[in-house]
């Protein structure tokens, strides 16, 4: 039996993505190594979700390349998972929702059952295993989505604003799940609007603005002293922060 090489590092080289004649991701270069969580922050329309979809292979770049360490595209696809901001729950039970992608990946039946039970226990959804997934609360659905992704045992887990519009308790529960998944060895790459959450989870921050990666720094350093003026204004939470950023730039020029 051959074992596939590690999935990471992931390299994005001069990646460009356009839609409707607009360049939404501009000459993006970055590299993700295995290790602590990376969190992508930025305002609405910065291209955070697009960035994740390009990494996850759901979108193909118009220019540039997205390359994994594992050259086998199929194996690379199978070793990553993504949780969407609004995950789609299949019209079946909670446990069947976890079971489904495992069956797609031809995981043996006994292993499927074992992983489903583990995922339910991890997410604290065991008592709801036979409930229809679509009648769960939004918070429970989000936990189920994370558990479903975890059951795939991904080497890399992408999370697109996984706690958007969740209350603090549900946010806490989802964050705990993310930490548990990271503790089991998965690389976490997630986007968020919530700066407090970014501080709690991130080891490093990537600041994206209008499709450009403006700053990448260790989380502590980023929140202490962002180098980019737009990032500074964003972190300060100034409502018209992008105008302030422009003004600062002009003053400096």
């Amino acid at each position, binding site marked *: 039996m051959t074992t596939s090489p590690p999935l990471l590092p992931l390299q994005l080289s001069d990646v460009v993505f356009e839609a409707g004649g607009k360049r939404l991701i501009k000459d993006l270069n970055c590299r993700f190594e295995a290790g602590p969580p990376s969190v992508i922050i930025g305002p609405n329309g910065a291209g955070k979700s697009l960035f994740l*979809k390009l990494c996850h292979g*759901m979108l193909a770049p118009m220019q540039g390349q997205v390359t994994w360490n594992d050259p086998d595209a199929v194996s690379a696809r199978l070793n990553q998972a993504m949780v*969407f901001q609004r995950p*789609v729950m299949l*019209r079946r039970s909670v446990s069947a929702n976890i079971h489904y992608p495992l069956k797609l990946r031809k995981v043996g039946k006994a292993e499927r059952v074992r992983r489903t039970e583990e995922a339910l226990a991890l997410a604290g959804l065991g008592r709801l295993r036979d409930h229809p997934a*679509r009648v769960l609360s939004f918070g429970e659905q989000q936990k189920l989505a994370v558990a479903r992704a975890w059951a795939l045992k991904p080497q890399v887990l992408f999370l697109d604003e996984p706690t958007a519009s969740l209350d603090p308790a549900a946010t806490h529960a989802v964050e705990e799940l993310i930490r548990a998944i990271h503790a089991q060895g998965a690389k976490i790459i997630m986007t968020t609007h919530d700066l407090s959450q970014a501080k709690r989870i991130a080891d490093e921050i990537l600041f994206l603005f209008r499709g450009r990666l403006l700053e990448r720094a260790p989380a502590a350093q980023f929140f202490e002293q962002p180098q980019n003026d737009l990032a500074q204004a964003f972190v300060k939470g100034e409502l018209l922060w992008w105008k302030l950023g422009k003004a600062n730039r002009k003053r400096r020029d």
Partner: protein
Amino acid sequence: MDDFGDAIRAALNLLVSLDADLMEIVGLSLYVSLVAIFFACLIGLPLGAAIALFKFPGRKLFAVILNALMGLPPVVVGLIVYLLLSRSGPFGVFGLLYTPTAMIIAQVILVTPIIAALTRQVIEDLWLEYRDQLLSLGANTTTALPTLLWDGRFSLITAVLAGFGRASAEVGAVMIVGGNIDHVTRVMTTAIALEVSKGDLALALGLGIILLSLSVSVNGAVYAIKDAAQRRHA
């Protein structure tokens, strides 16, 4: 007005007395329609879903033709099936003309485009909602097809009921290929046509009321099951 009163009386008499001939006709009508629906679903559901999911040249044209075929004239279908199954036709050797099987074949041809066209629309809408999630979970268009058919089951029931409505109410095609032979191929609709031609309008209307009640009962039962299941799964 007398006709309506007589019709209701005739319908009630037939039902209360459990008239053997009527029961045979009702049984055969249900048998032909339900078997036709079964085969039309077997073809139409995956066909509609495939047109919704797979990209191939002429896909849009295919969808337009499928929509147009929903309005297939039954007598034309009946005539074509008749020519195919008649002794001199390519399938004459099977001796199927004037049998319930010939009626089922004609109804399958009539109903399949309805089920396929409505399925295509349902699955296309569902694919928009599910696409990213399913692809991310590891599905491709081939493996997504059964998933979407299962998840769209509540909406697809409407497509199947539309097909059933067409099959159970159809008279032109089954008359041509079935021949309305007593105790062999007589169904509700052909029996009604016969009674009209004989001038027994009350009996014809009575049979019509029974056919209508049967259709309402089947639709009602299916909707009740659908609603209960849909409430459970949201």
